[in-house]
C-alpha cells in the first residue's frame, strides 16, 4: 500500500549571517492513513520547521515529499491550493493564531469561503456542524477570541483545520499552552476525531509523555536530524540513543516513589549553523569518543527501530554491566 505521506531526505537550510543554518537535515519518514507520527525534541531541534516544510509553508532546500504516492516537492501554485485542502495545521499558540477581529464563526468559515462553491446558508450550517464536532457551544458563534479561554480557542483552531476535511494534519505543540485538565480534554478530542475521520497526524511536541499517549511511531530529533525512530511502545521499552535516554530521564515524574536515576546533561544545545559532519550530540554525550566525529547514519537495531549512534551497542552493554 502506498503510504499517505512519504518524506525522503528532506533538508531545509536557512541562510544566516554566520553561515548556513541546518534546521532540518536529511529527515525521512512515512506516515499511513489514520496513524500518528510523534516528533519530539527540544527548542531549536527543527521539529517545527520540519512540519512547516512538509506543508510547503516553507519551501524545502532538498529532498522529496510524496502525498498519496504523488511527488509534491515542487508543486505549482494551483496544485498547492488543492493540496492545502488535504493537509492542514494546528498551531501551538491559540492566542496569536486567531485573528482578534474575527468572530468564532467567521474564523471557522474562512477556509470554506476560500475554497468556494458553497452557499452562505450551507456554510453556516457547516460551521455549526464543525463547532458541534469540536465541542464549542453554538451560543459562542458571535464571540471574539479574547472572550474565550485557551482551551476553547484551541478548539477553534482545530475546527478551522478540519473545515476542508483534510487527510493529514500537522499538530504543532497543540496542547503546550494549555493547563493539564484542559490539555486532557483537547487530546481526547483529537483522538476521537482521528478515529472518526481516519486522520493522519504529525504531532510535534517537546513533551515525551504526551507523545507516547497519542503516537504510533515516534521520531526523536536533535539539531535537525533524527537520532532515533521507532514504534512508540518499542521506543519507550528499549531506548537506544544517549540523547533520547537523557531526554526521558529529565522528565519530572509526578510520583514520589520509584525514583529513577537522572542523566544530567551538561552544557546546552550547540549551534545548528555550519555543523561539523560528526554526531551533533557529541559535545554533550558522556560516551563520546573518536568515532563519533564521523558522520552518523540511522541503523536498524530491532525491527522498525532505528538509531543514529555509532556506539549504541557498546553503550547498551556498558549500561547493562553497570546495572548488574
Amino acid at each position, binding site marked *: 500500500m502506498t503510504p499517505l505521506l512519504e518524506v525522503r531526505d528532506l533538508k531545509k537550510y536557512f541562510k544566516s549571517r554566520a553561515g548556513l543554518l541546518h534546521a532540518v537535515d536529511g529527515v525521512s519518514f512515512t506516515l499511513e492513513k489514520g496513524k500518528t507520527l510523534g516528533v519530539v525534541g527540544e527548542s531549536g531541534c527543527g521539529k517545527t520547521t520540519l512540519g512547516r516544510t512538509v506543508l510547503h509553508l516553507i519551501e524545502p532546500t532538498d529532498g522529496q515529499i510524496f502525498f498519496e504516492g504523488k511527488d509534491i516537492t515542487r508543486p505549482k501554485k494551483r496544485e498547492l491550493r488543492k493540496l492545502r485542502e488535504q493537509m492542514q495545521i494546528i498551531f501551538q499558540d491559540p492566542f496569536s493564531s486567531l485573528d482578534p477581529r474575527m468572530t468564532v464563526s467567521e474564523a471557522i468559515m474562512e477556509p470554506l469561503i476560500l475554497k468556494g462553491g458553497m452557499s452562505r446558508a450551507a456554510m453556516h450550517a457547516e460551521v455549526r456542524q464543525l463547532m458541534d464536532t469540536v465541542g464549542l457551544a453554538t451560543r459562542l458563534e458571535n464571540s471574539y477570541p479574547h472572550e474565550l479561554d485557551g482551551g476553547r480557542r484551541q478548539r477553534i483552531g482545530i475546527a478551522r483545520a478540519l473545515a476542508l476535511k483534510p487527510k493529514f494534519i500537522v499538530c504543532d505543540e497543540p496542547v503546550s499552552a494549555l493547563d493539564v485538565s484542559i490539555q486532557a480534554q483537547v487530546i*481526547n478530542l483529537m483522538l476521537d476525531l482521528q478515529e472518526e475521520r481516519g486522520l493522519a497526524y504529525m504531532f510535534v511536541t517537546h513533551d515525551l509523555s504526551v507523545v507516547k499517549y497519542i503516537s504510533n511511531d515516534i521520531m526523536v530529533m536533535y539539531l535537525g536530524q533524527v537520532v532515533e525512530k521507532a514504534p512508540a511502545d518499542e521506543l519507550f521499552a528499549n531506548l537506544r540513543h544517549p540523547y533520547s535516554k*537523557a531526554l526521558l530521564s529529565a522528565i*519530572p515524574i509526578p510520583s514520589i516513589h520509584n525514583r529513577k536515576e537522572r542523566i544530567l546533561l551538561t552544557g546546552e544545545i550547540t549551534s545548528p549553523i555550519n555543523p561539523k559532519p560528526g554526531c551533533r550530540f557529541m559535545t554533550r554525550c558522556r560516551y563520546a569518543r573518536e568515532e563519533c566525529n564521523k558522520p552518523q547514519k540511522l541503523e536498524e537495531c530491532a525491527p522498525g527501530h532505528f538509531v543514529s549512534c555509532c556506539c549504541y551497542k557498546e553503550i547498551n552493554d556498558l549500561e547493562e554491566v553497570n546495572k548488574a
Partner: protein
Amino acid sequence: MADTLLDIRNLAVQYQTDDATIYAVNNINLAIRQGETIGIVGETGAGKTTIAKSIMRILPNPQGKIVSGEIRFKDQNLLDLPEKEMQKVRGNQIAMIFQDPMTALNPIETVGYQIAEAIRRHNKITQAEADRRACDMLETVGIPMDRFGEYPHQFSGGMKQRVVIAMALACNPELLLADEPTTALDVTIQAQVLDMMRSLKEKFKTSVMLITHDLGVVAEFCETVAVTYSGEIVERGTVEHIFDNPQHPYTLGLFGSLPKLDTKDRRLKPIKGMMPDPTNLPIGCRFRDRCPDAIEACAAAPPDVETEPGHIVKCVRAKEKGGAAV
C-alpha cells in the same frame, strides 16, 4: 509553631477592573517553616502568583488590593510595614524569581552589574566589593566568571534563569519565592536548573515557595504541597499525603488528567468543564460543578477537614472518611 518563618492568615486579594471585581485569592491560610520547601500547585487563574506578589507587596497598583488578612514574616506583619521598611525586606530577606527570564533582566545592563546592583542595594559596600561578590554568585550558579560583562541577549534561556537565580540569592534571603522558574525552559535544561536550585537551597538553608503547574516538579523538589483552585487552597499536606493519598476531588482530577509514561490507556481522564469565572464565583464549594462526587451539602462553604495529621482537605465529604473539621 516556633520555627514558622512565614504565616499567611485569612489572606484575600481582589483585582478591580472597569466593570467587575476579580476574586483572585479568597481567605487562604498557609504557613512556611524555616528551611521548608513548599510547592504551590494549580492551574492558570488559581491565584498562585497573586499569593507570591502579595507577600512581596508588588500587586499591580491600583487594581490589585489586599482586602483582608495578615502576612506575618518572623515577628512582623508585612502588610503593616511602611513602603520604606518593605524595601529592606524585598530582595534582601525575601526574594522572588519570575517565570520568564527573558523579561526579568534589563537588556541594556550587563548581567554582572545587575547582580551587583542587588547586593549594593542592601549592603553598604563599595562597587568593587559588590562586583567581587557578584562574580562569586555567578560561579555558584555555574556560569564562568568571565561572562560577568556580557549582556542578557548573549545568554541562552537556561543561562538567563541562572542569572536571575544568582540575583535572587545574592543577598542570602531567608525565603525565596520561585514563580514557575523552569516553565519556560526545555526539559534537559529544567533538570539542570532544578538540580542547581536544590543544592543551593541546601547550601544557603533557604526556605522556598515553588509555584508551579507541574506535579512532576513538585514531587521531585518539595516537602509539602498546597493545591490551589479558584483562589482557595483545597488540599495541603506533605508530598506523601498529596501524591500517595490525594483526597480532594480536584487533586484526584489533576492526577487523572496527566498523560502517564507507564500506561497502556489510550484515553485521558480530564476534569469536565472549566474553572469558575473569578468575577462570579459560585457560593459553596467552587469545584462543585465539575466534581463527580458532589452532593447537596456542597452548596454550603466546605470546611477544612484534617484527614490525617497535617493533611487538610477543603471538602465536606472528607468527613465521611473519618476526618475532623479544623
